[in-house]
């Protein structure tokens, strides 16, 4: 049998133990794991950009350059392109929006754009990530046919994670199936 004092101290240790796993240790820049079981390929953080290229096919995305991650945001007021349910096709009525984006990028040669693909809330989160990426890639492909340099276009899927309309109805879903344009320079 344990006495009361022991139980109290046990519970306090327990409380500390519950909090501790949340306090992830601060990592020194460039630190590497000393654990010999650690797979060697995984790279410590703060060493970005080394994996960007690889053996790339003709459709490959350009390596992510710093301007896409740390460039200055530009307010370009470009209209989001909307998509049908479970579709990554740029529908004919939406093409004029893409043409406006191409025109903007041609007129602003110092700007680049991240094409942000989004889905409505329905369905698997992981499948929606792929679907959002395909929407962004479809818009990218169309912009390239309109003469925008591929190196100026990066894609980013948010899947169903960033709805612009919070409702749960057809109108909200329609507005959330979209590709937005984050312009930077």
């Amino acid at each position, binding site marked *: 049998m344990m006495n009361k004092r*022991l139980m109290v101290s046990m519970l306090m240790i327990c409380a500390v133990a519950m909090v501790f796993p*949340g306090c992830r240790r601060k990592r020194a820049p460039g630190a590497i794991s000393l654990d010999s079981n650690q797979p060697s*390929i995984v790279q410590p953080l703060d060493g970005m950009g080394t994996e960007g290229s690889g053996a790339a096919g003709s459709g*490959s995305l350009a390596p992510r350059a710093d301007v896409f*991650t740390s460039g200055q945001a530009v307010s370009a007021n470009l209209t989001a392109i909307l998509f049908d349910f479970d579709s990554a096709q740029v529908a004919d009525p939406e093409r004029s929006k893409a043409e406006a984006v191409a025109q903007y990028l041609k007129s602003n040669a110092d700007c680049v754009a991240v094409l942000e693909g989004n889905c409505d809330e329905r369905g*698997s989160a992981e*499948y929606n*990530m*792929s679907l959002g990426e395909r929407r962004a890639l479809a818009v990218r492909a169309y912009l390239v046919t309109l003469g925008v340099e591929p190196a100026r276009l990066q894609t980013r899927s948010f899947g169903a994670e960033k709805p612009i309309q919070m409702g749960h109805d057809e109108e909200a879903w329609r507005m959330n199936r979209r590709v937005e344009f984050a312009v930077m320079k």
Partner: protein
Amino acid sequence: MMKWMTAGCLAAVCLWSFSGMAQDVIIRKTTASKLTVDLTELRAGGSGGTVFLRTVDEDLRRSGWVVPVRTGAGYSAGGTLAAAGNGLRVPLVIQNSETRQTLFNQNVGIDNADPKRMGHRVSDAILKAVTGRRGMSGCRLVLIGASARGKELFVCDADGGNLSPLTSDGSIVLAPTWGPRGDQILYTSFRRGFADCYLLDLRSGKTHQVAQYSGMNMAGDISPNGQDAALVLSKDGNPELYIKSLSSGALTRMTQTRSVGEASPSWSPDGSQIVYVSDAAGVSSPQLYLISRGGGSRRLTTRGSQNVNPDWGANNLIAYSSRQGGRFALMVYDPALQEHRVIAQDGADYEDPSWAPDGRHIFCTRSEGYRSTIYLLDIMGDPPLKLALPVGNWRSPTCSP
């Protein structure tokens, strides 16, 4: 379709084996057939002791195999909980009440003073001694929870207790999964602005990058031998399935499906195949596919407008979500029998299934009225259990091996 019991049936009913062993093992399950264990000789004092005893009791009930009773039990478990250094210890004795045979007589201990963790350890020891089966009480879940700054990873025990935050990325996290040794978590985070894939080492607390290519880098699943990660990457212009060696970094592209997308890979227990989601059939709806290590894929599901979130368990069964009649039902597919069956289907959505290591239970997301929480389902028909988590939208539970 099913040689399957319906709830409330008291007659013995044949079920599949789901132990991962021979398919002709027959398990009899009735309400009356659960084994009984007398826990009255299991003793512990104080409020921590109360937590310990309640945890053992609840864990055994949750296991589905055993019911604690006070009289006429087939088995007994006894011992007194005591402090041992900084930890806890019980000299645990488990006996068959009829034969008086001692099935277990060892110290069971943990090196910290957490009576709940200790309860999980003892309940798994009792279950193992009485049934020969591995319990799930000692396993941990990684799951996604909402925070003020986005979505973060959390961990908790199999009953929802001991919840604690694991990441503080301040962005969005997706698709967490455990490495086969239970000491690593592969996941995708937007911590650097794009969907990149990371490996969190739980022992060192360090996070390592696994895939940070242009486009999307979605975490998938680490192979059973811990050598490879199945990922979905869009670096070559379309989301495709890849295998990345975690030792050499070599990347093998597994699919070539221009204009359709892949998602959610899960390795077979022998590491020879991967089940994944694709809409490759051009039917514009996601379905499950199988691909072998050397390439060559085939479609697995044909019914249901969407079949997603596969998890291939160590028991060789594939749990997945199937959209039927506007809702996601929880299904299990047996590759040996080529049979699909419904585990949960009602007015809610059941998604993100993850097998518990007991091969009998499945953790999943259950959503209703745009609120989601974590449930434990029993493929042998015991009622679903809601995990005791704080109010919030919890998703994507993945059980440690």
